[in-house]
């Protein structure tokens, strides 16, 4: 396994090996699936769309439907206007969505297709039926990562749809960031428990975790309704979770509709969830229900019960910046020692923030944005750790280095729990503690000598 990887680290300026990111459009596609009766559309050659659909499907084990402009060489030279117009005509005739959310690829970005102009032309030519909408986001694959694409698509929802009627309603906006449908479900549960009225967008729950009832629905019941996206302009506050994923949309909403915003870290772990609950409480001018306090207490209880197994354990972790920020804080919170932290997404500020979080437990923490899993692996070879956390691609490193491994982030293509259970909120944090300790205990039970096997742990 990974025979070519040695502990000797050479500086690489040009070659990316085993990336810890993918490209923008898949994030835009995921965000668009969180809108009710929305068809994501990939304006490029069809390979991108096939890859993005397949990849999301492998992660969710769910249908992921999207259309493409299917560029040919001719269109790549002369522009893709005819392709997009034909596509829109077909999409509305055959698949009848309420809205089409167009995103771009490196192809259409390099040739410089003017999407707003093409949409305008399609309206003029009567291709877009009465009452239906086409919106767009530019998502060049050579900038940022899949997270950037998600953020750009969310910003586009606001740009095209949110309106201010001048009358502020007692409703809060919630941008959940790029999290799982199960996490979105959890966020809604928490907000309801605190008693805040909210609009969440996007919302992929009941879209990418839909029920099997013998019927296929191209547009499942879930997803934020277009009317709600419009109404976001009248809310009194926006909470954006995950700075990278949610800031552009929140800022756009402030710019366009004067809705003030507050950006929080993703509520992973005790303090980050506390911050979220507290923000909800303040926003709604409500008090936190006893049941939620008990949930929090059960989490703290579990951490204290398991403390001896977590204390000072070295962790290598890779993934997406917003997830990592909160997860690393949680690791510090439960007494673990983050040793190396890698994301593929560019971001110098993020590196500084992570170093600050880790400073109390590890001043020499290795933090790298715009880096890769190969680097992480090489570093581990020279600096052994106790635990690896990351997406499915980490399993090869875990196997090679015989490390306990916790799957966390996107994508997880070889396990099923991530689509059903949250990692956000207090209950999500309990699940993370369970997964971490399970990984340690499984290794211990498997590898310990017979005389050392414990019945009770």
């Amino acid at each position, binding site marked *: 396994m990974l025979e070519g990887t040695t502990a000797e680290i050479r500086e690489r300026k040009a070659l*990316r090996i085993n990336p810890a990111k993918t490209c923008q459009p898949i994030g835009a596609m995921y965000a668009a699936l969180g809108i009710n009766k929305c068809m994501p559309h990939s304006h490029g050659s069809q390979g991108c769309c096939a890859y993005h*659909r397949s990849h999301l499907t492998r992660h969710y084990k769910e249908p992921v439907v999207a259309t493409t*402009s299917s*560029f040919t060489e001719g269109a790549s030279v002369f522009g893709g206007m005819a392709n*997009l117009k034909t596509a*829109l005509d*077909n999409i509305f005739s055959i698949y009848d969505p309420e809205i089409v959310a167009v995103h771009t690829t*490196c192809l259409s970005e390099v040739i410089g297709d003017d999407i707003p102009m093409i949409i305008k032309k399609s309206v003029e030519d009567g291709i877009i039926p009465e009452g239906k909408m086409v919106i767009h986001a530019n998502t060049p694959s050579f900038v940022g990562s899949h997270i950037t694409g998600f953020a750009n698509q969310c910003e586009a929802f606001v740009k095209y749809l949110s309106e201010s009627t001048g009358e502020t309603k007692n409703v809060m906006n919630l941008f959940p960031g790029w999290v799982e449908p199960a996490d979105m479900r959890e966020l809604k549960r928490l907000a309801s428990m605190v008693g805040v009225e909210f609009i969440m967008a996007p919302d992929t729950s009941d879209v990418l975790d839909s029920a*099997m009832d013998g019927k296929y629905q191209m547009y499942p019941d879930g997803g934020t309704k277009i009317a709600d996206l419009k109404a976001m302009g009248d809310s009194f506050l926006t909470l954006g979770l995950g700075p990278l994923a949610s800031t552009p949309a929140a800022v756009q909403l402030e710019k366009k509709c004067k809705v003030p915003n507050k950006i929080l870290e993703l509520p992973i772990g005790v303090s980050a969830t506390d911050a979220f609950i507290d923000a909800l409480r303040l926003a709604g001018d409500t008090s936190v229900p006893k049941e939620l306090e008990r949930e929090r207490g059960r989490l703290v209880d579990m951490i204290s019960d398991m403390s001896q197994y977590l204390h000072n354990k070295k962790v290598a972790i890779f993934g997406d910046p917003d997830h990592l920020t909160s997860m690393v804080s949680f690791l510090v919170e439960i007494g673990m020692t983050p040793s190396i932290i890698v994301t593929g997404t560019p971001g110098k500020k993020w590196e500084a923030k992570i170093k600050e979080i880790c400073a109390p437990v590890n001043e020499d923490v290795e933090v790298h944005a715009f880096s890769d899993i190969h680097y992480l692996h090489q570093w581990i070879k020279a600096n052994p750790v106790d635990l690896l956390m990351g997406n499915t691609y980490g399993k*090869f490193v875990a196997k090679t280095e015989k490390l306990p491994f916790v799957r966390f982030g996107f994508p997880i293509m070889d396990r099923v729990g991530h689509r059903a259970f949250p990692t956000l909120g207090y209950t999500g944090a309990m699940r993370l503690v369970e997964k971490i300790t399970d990984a340690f205990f499984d290794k211990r039970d498997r590898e310990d000598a017979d005389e050392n096997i414990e019945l009770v742990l």
Partner: protein
Amino acid sequence: MSEENKSDSPMGPNGPSAAEAREQMLEVYPKKTMRKRGKQMLVNSDPGTPAEIGANSRTVPGIITQRGCSYAGCKGVVIGPIYDVLHITHGPIGCGWYSWLSRRNMNKIRKEGETNYLQYSMSTDMQEDHIVFGGEKQLEAAIQEAYDEFKPKAISVYATCPVGLIGDDIHSVCRKMKEKLGINVFGFSCEGYKGVSQSAGHHIANNGVFKHMIGVDDTPVEAKYKINILGEYNIGGDAWEIDRIFARCGIKIIGTLSGGVSYDDITNCHMADLNVVMCHRSINYMAEMMETKFGIPWFKVNFIGLEGTKKSLRKIAQYFGEKELIDRVEEVIAAEMAEVRPVVEDVKTRTTGKTAALFVGGSRAHHYQDLFNDMGMKVIAAGYEFAHRDDYEGRDVLPNIKIDADSRNIEEIEVEADPERYNMSHADRKKALEESGFTFSDYEGMMRQMAKDTLVIDDISHHELEKLIELYKPDVIGSGVKDKYVIEKMGVPCKQLHSYDYGGPYAGFKGAINFFKEIDRMTSSKIWKLARAPWQSDEDTSAEPVAETATV
């Protein structure tokens, strides 16, 4: 529905008519789309002389196709599986990422000190400044870094969409680095927008492999019967099962293009006496070019399904024509069948008469029909994503195929007989055998083997697939990951025939056993009955009666 229409139902006299089904699939389309899709959807009303199908034409924008791109066909399918070549994708990060271990072309290291590069995804990770100022320097540096880090035998480079547009000359960078590093470095201009599907990428890959790898190593191979298997990618270990059978028969496989294969195998595989072709679509170019240059004849085989495997083995034995081999092959078939027979007899009691529909890439929609036939199942509809007319109608239509504007820019390379290495004795053997009725360079296509009045649909759309399920409710559908969960939400099991749902092998005799058991499991699964809760039922029944009171 008229009686007349009913006679052409793929389900037999009681099912809805195929012509009517076709009409219903088409009726929602805008006019232009209807016209185009109509040419790609046929009722196979005269399998003996297949009708002309529209294939290998551009995808209708917005229709929800299953298709991928030329990069996927080149890097993802044909060259990507060579485990000890270091593959670099020149482009933004996505293409390299999505083609990273997502096809199950399995490999194992053969010798100490080798590296399996397929566990790595390598890319130039193009950024905005590379788009603006060009990415050649980045590519050159990436090749150097890859060499410094891994010291591979060979490096291959793959172009993605933006590369062609910004004008990076990957081939001159490769030539320069080949000279500098002293290893084989070669590139593929497989930009995603080329052609209309993965198929263009196959062609580009064939050309590149032929130019840069085939014939590089002339070391003679000592073996009595030497063959190559072309177009077999070792998904789920298929090639290893084929290897096992050939080893039993005493036939040496020099190269399998390109599943489980090493760089050295490919550079030396022109030493073979015969090429046999599994996936006609992806590799027929190579078979033709190798015959022209080295005189190695080829014919089509199929190791999917019992009848196909037996027939293919016998044909190979007949090609060599020696009694010793012919007898050995019969012994092997008899021994293998003794293991398979009880399984298939058992499975057949449950599968006979059940129906299947297959929509897979460019060859499996045909190959797998043999396995379903082995189980007594009926294939009611089938189609390819990106095959050409010859894969549907047979190679005899080749002279009549017009290359349209979308595929015209795919390079056709000129090949001539190699003055030193062209093997006259192979050519003589071919001639003699042909006179006795043996066929070479043959492929009769999918439609001839399909039953009368089945549906043949090229580049099936999401909408057409939904309609097909609604009308025919097949017992199983063979398709890919993008369709799988759509189909299963409708209560029909879907066998992924690209990834095998992470199982396999399905080729050869042991593969057939695996497949029979899988289809048996899927078509008799109880899970679909749980889709509705007892209280949702129309009948007046309640949930299971309460448990009996404990009697202890």
